[in-house]
Each structure stands twice: as C-alpha cells, then as structure tokens.
C-alpha cells in the first residue's frame, strides 16, 4: 500500500477507484483499523493550505460517501469487537447524546463505553451529506446518519437511529476523520 500512497499526491488521479490504505485482513495484527482514514482531500494533496482547485460539489459528495462508508464499517466493528479502542475515533471534546443522556469529553466517553454492555450492531441504513462550510467555518465536516438494530448483552434487541458529525483532519498523505458529535437513540426509547 505504500506504493499506492505515493500516487495520490499527483492530484489528477481518478479518485473513484482507490483503495483504503489499510486493508482489513491483510495487515499484521498491530495494524488493526483504529482510525478512519481516507485518501487526502482533493486540493489538500499538493500544498497544505492553499487549494489548487476548488472542490466541486460532486467531489464533496463522493468524498463524504467514501468517508461515511469507511467510518461506519470501522465504528461498529470497533464498538462490537474492540470496545476499548472506540474513543480513539472521537475528538477530545466530542459529545455523545445517548438516548438523551449527555456524555461529554474523552474521559467521560471512556467511562461510558466501559460501562455499556457488549454489543452486537447490525447497520441497515446509512446516509451521509457533506455539511455546508458556512456552518463549519471551513472545517470539512460530514453528517452521517445510520439506522439498524442492536443487542446489548442482557437487554432485548432494539432498533436504533444514530447520527454523527465527522470532521476531517487533513495531512498531506491522508485524511483522518474523527467524531465531533454523536447522537444515538433507540426507536422505542419511550417504552424501554
């Protein structure tokens, strides 16, 4: 994958066919996927701050979809199988609203995820949108919306809805996405 990486910085590469830099199942044990990483954002590849070409909307949308798919597969997998690593996907000041309860900051998130029983998630629906820069002050952000079922150990199965705000942290080689905010609710919250 090192070979692939060096080609991305050329900028005019057809970006629809790339591969995630770290591939599941083919990496040594220590390269488990603990970060949501996608290729560098177009325009960020060449120089750090000046955008060579402004991103057109379609590219924004494609990038958002890619990041969302990558994110969702890592997030729920980590939640189910490597719960202790889950908070690495969150920003330091991230907030989670879990069925109306607020959990704010990494320490609180760590405690919360420790307390939460083990889970089995099944995601059936995923949608995403790039968030308009007017709202985010040019911090590249995407909205991710998911839905499906979850079974927590010792509890019955629930349908859930969840949405995330993911923000991009760009480096010349890649983009790392982290959760700025997370809102989770059972669909039957009223009766549980």
């Amino acid at each position: 994958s090192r070979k692939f990486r060096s080609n991305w910085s050329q900028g005019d590469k057809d970006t629809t066919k790339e591969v995630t830099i770290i591939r599941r199942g083919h990496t040594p044990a220590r390269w488990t996927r603990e970060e949501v990483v996608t290729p560098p954002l177009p325009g960020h590849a060449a120089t750090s701050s000046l955008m060579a070409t402004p991103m057109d909307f379609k590219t924004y949308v494609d990038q958002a979809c890619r990041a969302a798919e990558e994110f969702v597969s890592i997030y729920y997998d980590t939640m189910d199988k490597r719960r202790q690593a889950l908070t690495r996907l969150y920003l330091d000041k991230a907030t989670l609203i879990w069925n109306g309860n607020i959990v704010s900051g990494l320490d609180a998130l760590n405690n919360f995820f420790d307390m939460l029983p083990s889970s089995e998630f099944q995601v059936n629906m995923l949608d995403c949108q790039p968030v308009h820069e007017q709202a985010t002050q040019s911090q590249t952000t995407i909205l991710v919306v998911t839905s499906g079922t979850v079974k927590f150990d010792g509890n019955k199965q629930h349908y859930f809805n969840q949405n995330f705000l993911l923000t991009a942290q760009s480096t010349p080689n890649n983009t790392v996405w982290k959760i700025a905010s997370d809102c989770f609710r059972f669909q039957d919250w009223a009766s549980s």
Partner: protein
Amino acid sequence: MCSTLRKCGTYRTEVAGHHDHGSTFQGRKKDGNPFQDNFDKRNPRYEHGGRELPPSGCQENDGSVEMGDVHKDRQLRHTPYSVEHNKKLVKWHSEVRIHTTTWRNRKCPERKMMEDTQDRKTSAWFKVTIPYGEKYDKAWLINSIQSHCSVPFTPLDFHYFQNRAHFFVQGASTASALNNVNYMICDDQNRKICIFVNHSSAPFSVKNRLKPSQMELLKLTMDKRYDVSRQALDLQRLRFDPDLTGSDVDIILNRRNCMAATLKIIESNFPELLSLNLCNNKLYQLDGLSDITEKAPKVKILNLSKNELMSVWELGKVKGLKLEELWLEGNPLCSTFFDKSAYVSAIQDCFPKLLRLDGRELSPAVTVDIDSSEFMKPCEESRNGFETLKHIVLQFLQQYYSIYDSGERRGLLGAYHEEACFSMTIPFNPEDSAPKSLSQYFGESRNIKVVKDPDLRGQLLRHTKRDIVDFLGALPKTQHDLSSFLVDTWYQTKRMLCFSVNGVFKEVEGQSQGSVLAFTRTFIATRGSNSSLCIVNDELFVRDVSPPETQSAFSIPVSTPSSSSEPSLSQEQQEMVQAFSAQSGMKLEWSQKCLQDNEWNYTRAGQVFTMFQTEGKIPAEAFKQIP
C-alpha cells in the same frame, strides 16, 4: 538581547515585562538558561511595574544584587540592560537555584528564615505560583485554595503571567500552609493543581503604595469626577487630570499600585457605584481591575474604550461583574475578530446578561450550561442544558411544520440556505421488501448501503433550496403531531446548531391516506442574528410506527394549521405564544390556539384561560410535562 525600554510618547519609560523568578526555577526548560528564556519572553503588555528583587533570603547583602530599582526612572531612561548585567543575573540565579530546590522539598519556611543571617522583618512576603493557572478563573482558584488551606489568607496582586497565575501573601505560617495545598486541589478535568510558594519581596502595589497625601489628592480628584445622580465615576484620562499633574501624583492606572489605590477609594467612598468610565487610560491588562468584583460589585456599566486590551481573555478577569453595558471600542482586541457578530458573541460569552455593547443594543445571548444526568436510562428531551436553545428550536419546528403540513410547501424556501442539502431514507430490512406504507418513498431512499452507483447517489441528494423544496412539494401531504416530537439538540457552536427530531405524522391524502408513520429528521442550521435558523443540511428518515407509538399519536387535539391562505405567525405572535406558554404552563400549540381563538388579545386570552382552568375544562395533556 531585547531592549527593555519602550519609549511611549510623553510617558516616562517603564520596564516592559516582569521577571518571574520563582517560576523560572520550577519551569522545565530543556535548552538554554531558563532565566534567559524568561527574560526574552517579556510580555510587553504586562506591567507589574518591574522586576522583583530576587529571593532575598539567600544573600547577605540585599542591596548588592539589586540590579536597579526600575522605578528609578533616571537609570532606566539612559541605561538599558547591558549584556554584562544579564550575565550577572544569570550567574546569580544559578546560585540561588539550590536554595529554591530545597524549598521545593518542602522544608519549613520558618526554619529557613531562621537560618538567614539577613535582618528581616517578621512579616515576610511570599509569592505563590500556580503553573498553568492561566486557565483557571480567579475567584474559583482563590476559593478552592482557601478551602484547602488551614490558614486564612489575603491574596494580593493576583495576576496572570504567561501561562501561570500568581499572587502574594504575607507571613511565613501562611506561606507554609499554602505550600501544603500543593496537589490537593483537583480541577474540573481531575488534574491536580500545583502550588509553589517562594520568598519574594513585597508585591508591587505594596512596595509602591501611595502616600497618604497622594491618596487624599486622588480622593479629591475622584470626588470631582463623581456624578451622584447617576452613581457614575468618570476616570477617563485620569493621569492627565489637572489636579493630579499639578502635584507629584502620577496615577498610571495600568500600574497595580495606582489601580489598587483607586479601587480602595471606590470601595470606601463609592461602594454603590453603578457606572465606571476608564476610557483612555492605557490599560494593557485588567489584573488590577479584577478586584473590582469585591470592591464595587454593583457596577453595571463599564467603559474600557480606547485602552490597549489585546484579547477578550482580559475581560474574563472582570467577569464577576454583572454588566449590562460595556464599551470596548478602540481596543486592539476589537480588530482581532473576523466579523462583528463574532466580536459580539465573544463578549456575550463573557457577560451573558449584557444589554448594550459600544452603544448598540444587543439581542440577549443564549446561555448554555451543561448538567450531568444518569446513564443508561433513556430519557425524554436530552437534558443537556440547551434549555434556552429549545425555544429557538421549538419555534423553528412549529413554523416549519405548519408550512410543511399546509399543503403549500413552497413557503419553506425561506427556511433553507441557497446551497442546502437534503436526502431521505427508509429502513432497509434485508429479509423483507419495503412495507406497503413506505412504498412511495422507496425510490427516493438514499441508503448508500444499498445504492452503490455514485451517479444515483448524487441524484438522490437534493442540492439547492429550489430542488429541495420542489422535491418536498412532491411528497404526500402530511399532518405532523407536534406533541409527539422529541428533539435532541446534539451539537452547537456560535454559528450553527444540529438537532434531531423524532416524531410521528399522518399522511392525509393519497393511497396511504390515514396511515401513521414515524420519522427522524436531522437538521443542521446556521444561526442568524435574531435567533433565526437557516437550514444547510436536512436528512429525513421515515419508518413504520410500532404499535405503542400509534396509540399515543394524535391522541390529543393539535391546532391544525388552516389552509395556505392563513399567513404563518408573525414574530410578535410567536413571542406571544412563547410568553403565554411560559405563563400558563400549557404546551405551545395549546397556547397558540387559545391566543388565536381570542384574536391575539393577550389579556383576554389570559382571562379565558384562567376561567377555563378554574372550571377544570382544560385537559391535562394541554400542559407541559414537568421533567
């Protein structure tokens, strides 16, 4: 070597910056001489009035190491610190180092004092340093320390320098008690707070205390500038007051001793002060002024215009005042903001109850405080302290859905940003096909787990407000049950708000007429100046209801918005609804109905409400649930 001189106009030259001997030793600077480092990093804006004497317990003869009292202006004007001077200082301090290290190992200061051959007064001064203290609020810090300290103390000359907080105390027993508070206090992130205590010379404001004659003159001058009728004290350009310049009294308010004297006079002579004007006094920092929260707590109007304040952080030092009016224009900090609203927001963060800034009325700021709640128990509205935002959000949703349900969804154009995005989805169950009730939405569902073609994904994402509103117009006509709405406000900044609405609606026409569906709609909106929201992202998820949801849906009458000819509520009407709801305790839609039925005559509506209530005619569901 940086020059320590700064000639500024007609002011006498002063030393910029302040040596922080105590902290130099505690600081862990890996390269170079720590002292040198500090020396270079003078904060020109900080004016504690000069260097302290080095910890004087360590040398026999105090006088010889004194590198020049900075207040001997003559010297300063003509003799910038030379390199030789520095070398001497450097050398001297490496000798002192050992003593200070001993101190850090917590030898009793009293014992140490007795070891001194120096003839000293019994009430020695000590300087207390809190590394990283910059992030702590002064009042909180002092109170926390006091609560852990066995001896009551009076902190003097509290100030921040670089990232540390400092203050002075008198008396070895006090110093010793404070030393013991080290590592005993935890901040709100559970980090232990370090407290270092070192010998020091007297603090600036004490060393340079105004003489009684000077105090008397200052008091008379201030009396002349006091307006009894408005309880206002005008101290602008105080230094150049003719009464003061005539005599030998130089009131430079940026200096701690002058500010302390001024505040002392205010405390004794004008304790009920309401308005204070400090315009044009070359204030670089507000450490001195921070004592005003104790000395004149009633001040509501503060004029700090035309000073030299560099950042809003300075204002935080006086945030204990419940200001209603503030003047800041003419300070360097004003031009550091991207735009006016960012400036206003930043000030409002500091003074939430502020009504007027630089002479302009402000819309009341939204205050947010987070409170904690229990885990694992799903609860109603997310009790995340965004209570005041709830009104904005609820008002928005009321308006939005009244248009949405009206049948003329073109009215929603005003709610969206020019380049907003919208998409919708329905649940995907791998086993069954889409239920009949959702069949109309099936083709529009942008579930990217199912839809893999990038072009189709692009098409299903509606972009620009025209496209969105056209698309929404084509969806079946609906009636939403606002009382079923559950809103999670899950992210906010000054610029934007994210919230998710969970609820149910009925389809009132078409093949699925009468069917009740559930939805989760996520909005991301930018915030305008007058609490207005402008949608930039909108995602709608529609699903079948579960049996319990059907039962509770639409069980109480909702004021159905009438046909499209009726205009949506005006700003004033919305405010009336809010106020009526707050006063009566009824839910918003019931309040609205009551007002509408009474032709928006607030008083009459109130009378009607009271009458019905006493007669027991209003059902319980009309009232807001008490959380």
